């Protein structure tokens, strides 16, 4: 028989306690590391210009002011940019769904000539980044005289190859019998999609819509290259402009605008972080 050296239980326990204590401290450090920049943004946005540059810095504004917010909304008319952002989010997401769902449905449940070819085209398109296509697309819209509208920020963004792929995967898992059964129940294609398929793909749809909404809301590169006048620019571009709003960089202004941009995301995350994280984890592992 092998001889086991009996471990000293007391030493083991002490070691364990010490390591869990250190681990807790480190975790606290990590939490601060990831939360602090956001806290600093909020704190700065309520400071006066002078206090924002004061040394030593104040953690929370001593001279609490809403001046930055008033400045941003009055001088820059953040409202109209905000409106553009909202229109883009709603339009892009709605049109994306309208185009995506039928395509995902036939890719999952129909056999037709050219299907495999079209699907591989879709997969290739999914790998093509916008940073390669913007030059030609910009010229196209310039030729079509459409740069003075929101269309350049809508039309190229509503075909969601990745979304079609995800939804198709989900649709494929729905048993054929359900659709056949619905056909026997005299359901037409529209009813099969809306009454059978979509209710069964709720969480995938939620994930795709969430990605589309945040993607549009957060997008910076595309509006930057697809607009030539402020009238059609969304919030992100406006926030960047805050850097040059007054002479010198007034950080409280920038941070105030930043908070306006982040607020919806923060609110959504506070309420649905568990679901968001679960769906992202699932998506990544797949």
């Amino acid at each position, binding site marked *: 028989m092998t001889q086991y050296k009996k471990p000293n239980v007391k030493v083991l326990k002490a070691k364990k306690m010490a390591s869990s204590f250190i*681990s807790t401290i480190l*975790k606290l450090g990590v*939490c601060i*590391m*990831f*939360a602090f*920049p*956001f806290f*600093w*943004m909020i704190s700065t946005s309520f400071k006066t210009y002078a206090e924002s*540059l004061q040394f*030593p*810095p104040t953690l929370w504004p001593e001279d609490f002011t809403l001046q930055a917010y008033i400045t941003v909304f009055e001088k820059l008319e953040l409202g109209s940019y905000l409106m553009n952002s909202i229109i883009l989010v709603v339009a892009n997401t709605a049109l994306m769904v309208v*185009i*995506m769902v*039928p*395509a995902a449905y*036939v*890719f999952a449940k*129909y056999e*037709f000539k050219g*299907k495999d070819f*079209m699907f591989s*085209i*879709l997969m290739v*398109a999914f*790998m093509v*980044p916008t*940073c*390669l*296509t*913007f*030059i*030609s697309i910009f*010229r*196209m819209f310039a030729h079509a005289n459409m740069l003075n509208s929101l269309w350049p920020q809508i*039309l190229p963004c*509503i*075909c969601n*190859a990745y979304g079609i792929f995800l939804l198709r995967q989900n649709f494929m898992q729905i048993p054929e019998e359900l659709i056949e059964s619905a056909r026997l129940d005299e359901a037409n*294609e529209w009813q099969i999609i809306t009454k059978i398929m979509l209710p069964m793909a709720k969480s995938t749809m939620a994930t795709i819509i969430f990605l589309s909404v945040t993607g549009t*809301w*957060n*997008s*910076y590169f595309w509006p930057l*290259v697809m607009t030539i006048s402020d009238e059609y620019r969304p919030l992100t571009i406006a*926030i*960047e402009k805050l*850097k040059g709003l007054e002479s010198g*960089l007034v950080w409280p202004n920038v*941070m105030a605008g*930043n908070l306006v941009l982040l607020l919806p*995301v923060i609110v959504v*995350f506070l309420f649905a972080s568990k679901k*968001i*994280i679960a769906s*992202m*984890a699932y998506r*990544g*592992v797949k």
Partner: protein
Amino acid sequence: MKKKVNILRKLFPYVMVIPTMILLAVFVFYPLVNMVYLSFFDYNLIKEKTFCGLDNYYRIFFIQTDFRDAFLNTLIYMAGTTFFLLFLGLVFALWLQRDSKFNAIAQRLMFFPNICAGLAISLIFQWLMDDEGLFNMVLGFFDIAPLRWLNDSTTSLLSVMIVAIWKGIGYYALILLSSVKSIPTELIEAADLDDAGKIRTFFKITLPMLSPQLFFLLITLTINSFKVFDSVRLMTGGGPGNSSDVLVYWIYRYSMEYNKYGLACAGGTVLLVILLILTVVYFRVIGKKVHYQ
């Protein structure tokens, strides 16, 4: 009448996919082809475009040093962010794998920057890294000479990379965490009973089990890091000098700011070739991944 119904039934799937196909043709494939085409022309918006063969390519590789700078910087950025995101992602995943409230909170805080606009994160860090920003104030508090972070050609690219890692780490930790959790617990328990020790267990069981996922993430990260733009434009503007210039920002400047479309398209085509190679590797990996299961 009956025939008509049959034809309609046959056409149905095509009608359903046609909007998608048209959009892809107009907004993905035509622009790509057009970009490659334009890369052989001397073209700006003012002059008539003239064919110039490979001249644009010759210029960006051998004359225009800023393209080479941007290219090299992109490679550095890619190597740095990819390595640290995977390494730190794995560290955090293993560290936070136990299900506890505290771990869940830490995980959520880490993940949150991921769904925030890159612009917002860039601006926050630009403020923190400002000459009069908090980072320097803290350094000053300890009597350390202030750094010029984004405004120094030796640290500007590094600073951009730090922000990218800070923003992305939560996502990669999350994905690796769920892969770690998908390793059958019996395996780890068996190793425990064999008195394998934590480090041995990690290298002999956990890491090999994670390797397909890690490789998959490696490719995704590599592809993504070639697309970096927002943070560079916002935080450094590629500077000082060209110290933090990257490929996409270079393409953006040459097209939208300098109107040198031919050059920009040549740069874009180079990027396209790189991405094409990486994509082929990516699909090979996906094919293998499916094969494993």
